[in-house]
């Protein structure tokens, strides 16, 4: 049971991450592979504030969101100068920078030693150290993020995002300063990712930089492509799918000595087959 709750918490955290990345990649067409950086900023915000300064969890979420937004604003301004593949490469560069800050700013982050002992939140005498109760908190945030995302994509703002994805230059001729829109959605995406980070830090209680590499960004990207770009429910489905597949493969019953490697291989094959036969994702309609 604990194991299932653990998986559910992971899924809910990845739902938050993938919904927010989908706003940037799926709806606006900005191929960002730097989501783990904002995720990490949220994680470290909560980890540092809670362990060093004893700041309460919910305040640390807020600070994480603010820090992440400011950094997203600065990075977004630079990335807005790039297009398509170059955008992806530029965002990748930012992920590398943030990762090396986590790794090397030892006074702040303790570098590779990581930060242990991050406390669970405690509010109104509800003790979130019980995993089931913490799960409810994470799901609550995931639902909230889902509704915020729905609100964004259903508005005129969301329509403009899609227009940018389809033909930014043409859209400009109709009087839209598309840079403002691209910047806004990048900041919104970064801010939401930081929330997921805070939740993860409080849940896992020990963090180190290795979680926030490019690999993680690509994993989140894989979730939204697999689930369906520009489809919010697709992101939820993709998160469930990609978190569960490797877990299910644990129970296939392979010889112990090759089990771990075989899981990776089968996982990779499943992903390739899916992209081959369903390039638009599980329930998406749009292809990059």
């Amino acid at each position, binding site marked *: 049971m604990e194991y299932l709750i653990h998986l559910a918490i992971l899924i809910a955290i990845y739902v938050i991450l993938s919904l927010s990345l989908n706003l940037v990649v799926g709806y606006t067409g900005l191929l960002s592979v730097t989501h783990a950086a904002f995720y990490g900023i949220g994680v470290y915000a909560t980890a540092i504030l809670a362990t060093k300064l004893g700041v309460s969890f919910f305040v640390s979420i807020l600070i994480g969101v603010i820090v992440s937004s400011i950094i997203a604003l600065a990075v977004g301004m630079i990335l807005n100068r790039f297009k398509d593949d170059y955008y992806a490469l530029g965002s990748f560069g930012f992920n590398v920078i943030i990762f090396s800050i986590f790794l090397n700013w030892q006074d702040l982050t303790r570098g590779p030693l990581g930060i242990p002992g991050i406390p669970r939140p405690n509010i109104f005498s509800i003790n979130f150290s019980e995993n089931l109760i913490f799960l409810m908190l994470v799901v609550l945030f995931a639902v909230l993020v889902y509704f915020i995302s729905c609100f964004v994509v259903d*508005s*005129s703002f969301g329509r403009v995002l*899609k227009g940018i*994805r*389809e033909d930014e230059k043409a859209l400009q*001729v*109709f*009087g839209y300063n598309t840079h403002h829109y691209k910047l806004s959605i990048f900041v919104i995406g970064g801010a939401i990712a930081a929330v997921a980070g805070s939740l993860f830090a409080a849940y896992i209680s020990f963090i180190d930089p290795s979680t926030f590499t490019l690999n993680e960004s690509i994993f989140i990207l894989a979730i939204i492509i697999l689930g369906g770009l520009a489809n919010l429910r697709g992101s939820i489905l993709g998160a469930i799918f990609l978190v569960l597949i490797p877990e299910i493969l644990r129970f296939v019953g392979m010889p112990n000595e090759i089990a771990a490697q075989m899981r990776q291989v089968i996982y990779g094959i499943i992903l390739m087959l899916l992209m081959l036969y369903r390039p638009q994702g599980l329930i998406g309609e749009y292809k990059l």
Partner: protein
Amino acid sequence: MENQTESNYIKPIAIVVRGLVKHFGGVYAVDGLSITIEKGKVTGIVGPNGSGKTTLINALSGILPIDDGKVSFDGVWLSKVKSYEVSSYGITRTFQDVRLFNQMLVLDNILIVLTERNVFGSLFEKHSDFHLKRAEEILRRVNLWEKRHELAKNLSYGQRKLLEIARALAMNAEIYLFDEPFAGIFREMAKIIAAIVNELRVQGKTVILIEHDMNLIRELCDHVFVLDSGKLLAEGKPEEVLKKKEVVEAYLGE
């Protein structure tokens, strides 16, 4: 006699282009072009392929940066045209290569140009009944209201061209730049477009039309500019200009 009376009063001007240069590497697509486009008239721009017609329109709408020279919209002189600002001068356009928002609904292709331009404003708005009514009116004008829930990419080529013109109409602009709106479409649809051009003229709007079909130029245009190798070859009333020897030569070769 008629010419004399015409030159006796100052004609209202929509666009002035002075010494406009746009080059791609060593190739000068527009080479020191100076033209004046009158308000409330349909002006044709003709010329062989590669004569700089589309480049001119792209420079006027900020799609391409101007290398040299300046333009004036309604009396405002600019040496740098920003694409997101041209609409504030009342200018809108269509594209030769039909640039719709393909993976969006037909209706959304229209609504997007009707709704709020401000980032925060747009976040708290979907579209009003007024927007929807206006979109219906425009889409019915080009017979696409029934297709409003289809993706723009699933329309036929002619319907896509009509949708692009509808999108320009939705801008309610003063100056319309139409880049080969009649190319490659059926007669019934061409009739709709010709009717729209005439309606715009009646409403006192300025239309700039790039077109290869000389019959359409004669039928629709008040004035025509002939471009060749990025320079002005001739201008005047269509029936006179199109008869000129150098114009015929430029089109048909020696």
